[in-house]
């Protein structure tokens, strides 16, 4: 197992720059998830680490050794593809043994390694079948087995659960986590699914337009987003984002005349650039009441999404809509009048023009 350093990496496809000065250190034994939209550069970054893609400039170090000019075969790294990429003409056993044949391991050791990894992944009963006879989950187990059998320096996974159905994805997510804890392998995992990212990662790396947006533990990324992109990309349902005016201790949504009162010193010294200030509030920080109270603003419900464990309620305040997360059944219908407040501790303020945070939530 090894530490991976990415230093000043740039990658161009023709004139298109897909990685812009990427710097990242993945510590030995760490599980790092690269999160972002498709086209954000996360898969390119992963492929660059693996050696499936060259870098235009910059260094990639594995255990302190520069590898950016080495072939994939010489980097001692394993890769799990979204499509699994199991060789269809080989049995499961042959698939898993394939990387061991490359290093000419003798047959006895090979069998031992394959048997061991197969039992860890609970696919021993499938060893003599062809991949096409397996279920999607088992195919992915085989793909992971093939990656792990060699005990590589690092395990890279490119949306490995992307093609599985929701239920299986949840199950495999847990398995990958268990496997990581058991093996302690340095792992880099690419996904656009923030739930996967939150549940698996030691640290999340958010990439957008080839630029690293934020690196941090899942709760850090969730609670202290450094910019609007991270704030809106992480979290479901998505964070409420509104342009606001700040007057004294009040925050006015858009051009509304009534404002939310915030205690000192939350709003002290906040000033945006030319574009003004944007406030971001997660639905769980939008608090609802049936009766008026100090600090609450009147609102009308416009839509309710009952989700079983909780409801998502759209509350209209003047021209703006705030989505609130409530206990289920709290609001019974549309057009209901209620009172809304924003938890000052969970309000995020951003410079509208740059998208950068003005002050993280406390």
């Amino acid at each position, binding site marked *: 197992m090894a530490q991976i350093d990415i230093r000043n990496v740039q990658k161009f496809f023709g004139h298109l720059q897909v990685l812009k000065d990427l710097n990242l250190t993945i510590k030995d034994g760490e599980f790092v998830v690269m999160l972002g939209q498709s086209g954000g550069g996360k898969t390119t970054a992963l492929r660059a680490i693996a050696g499936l893609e060259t870098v235009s400039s910059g260094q990639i170090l594995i255990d302190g050794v520069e590898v950016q000019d080495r072939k994939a075969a010489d980097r001692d790294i394993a*890769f799990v593809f979204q499509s699994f990429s199991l060789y269809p003409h080989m049995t499961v056993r042959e698939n898993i043994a394939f990387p061991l044949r490359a290093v000419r391991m003798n047959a006895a050791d090979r069998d031992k390694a394959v048997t061991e990894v197969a039992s860890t992944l609970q696919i021993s009963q499938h060893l003599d079948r062809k991949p096409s006879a397996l279920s999607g989950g088992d195919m992915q187990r085989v793909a992971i087995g093939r990656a792990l059998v060699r005990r590589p320096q690092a395990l890279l996974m490119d949306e490995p659960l992307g093609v599985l159905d929701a239920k299986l994805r949840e199950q495999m997510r847990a398995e990958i986590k268990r496997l990581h804890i058991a093996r302690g392998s340095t792992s880099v995992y690419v996904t656009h699914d923030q739930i996967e990212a939150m549940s698996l990662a030691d640290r999340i790396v958010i990439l957008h337009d080839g630029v690293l947006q934020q690196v941090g533990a899942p709760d850090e990324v969730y609670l202290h987003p450094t910019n609007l992109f991270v704030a809106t990309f992480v979290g479901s349902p998505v964070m409420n984002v509104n342009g606001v005016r700040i007057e004294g201790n009040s925050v006015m949504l858009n051009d509304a005349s009534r404002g939310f009162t915030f205690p000192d010193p939350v709003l002290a010294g906040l000033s945006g650039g030319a574009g003004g200030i944007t406030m971001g509030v997660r639905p769980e920080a939008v608090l609802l009441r049936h009766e008026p109270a100090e600090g609450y603003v009147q609102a009308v419900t416009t839509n309710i999404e009952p989700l079983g464990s909780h409801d998502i309620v759209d509350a209209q305040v003047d021209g703006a809509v705030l989505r609130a997360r409530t206990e289920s059944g709290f609001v019974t219908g549309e057009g209901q009048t209620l009172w809304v407040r924003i938890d000052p501790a969970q309000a995020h303020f951003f410079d509208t023009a740059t998208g950068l945070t003005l002050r993280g939530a406390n």
Partner: protein
Amino acid sequence: MAGVRTSREIVSNRIAVVAVFVALAIMLTPIYWIASTAFKPRNLATTIPPTVVFEPTVSPFVKLFTKRSQLREQPSQEEYDAAPWWEKMVFDGGEKVVRNAKTGDVTLSGYGDRFTNSLIISIVSTMLAVSMGTLTAYGFSRFKVAGEDDWLFFILSTRMLPPVVVAIPMFLMYRVVGLNDTHLGLIIDTAFNLSFSVWIMKGFIDEIPREYEEAALVDGYTRMQAFFKVVLPEALTGMAATAVFCFITAWNEYAFALIMTNRNAQTAPPYIPSQVGSGLPDWTVIAAGTLLFLIPVAIFTFLLRNHLLRGMSFGAIRK
């Protein structure tokens, strides 16, 4: 098909069955004709109306493989009795088998040699076309080639002129370099199959996901090893289909063979019609030669038929 079938389905099904039988009859009739003629005595070969019921004889095959001459006078009874059964058939047809004056060995016709030539040239040419075509197609499929579309069109354009147009200048060039009437010369000629081979194989290889090779690359293999261990097994189906196609084309090649060869390297296609000769042609001999000529292609196609049905790698990659 489960469930109750409507009368309409039954009718359309019957129409389909009838259509298949009609198509089958149209396609099989010439083959039946050749096969039956190959076993007919000469005098029944061209009767009108055609003779359907007859006593089959192998005399056309005997005549096919031997050199014969017209009998000036009937053989003596001793000569006839001493002759083996197949020679009697030739006597019965009013001909005699040509024998070497000194050794008495039977002089063979050219058919066996021509047939062997056909086999050698077709097999070598098919192997070359498929292997080179696969490599070329892989290069075009996986790497950025400057002017790729132009190159591919250029490759295909070698197939666009009728072979006869190409054959004359080729003949002149071959004469200079001494390739006329050689196996190698004809193998090079039939390499025009390469263009189709490249195109067909490119289609197949394009469909093999790159991730297979990438997986092999990170698993510790070189690109060459990845090609042989991962791409090639996946491309086998395509290679088999291409091989059948190339083999049939090479086997049936006529124009080049007619112009470029005359004895040493001549193949069966120009040889068989040359036996029509002057005077009355013996259609039974030609039918026998044609029937034997059909067999290798039929066997080859039959052996590779499973590969022709595609879908071997289906389901191993999820998209």
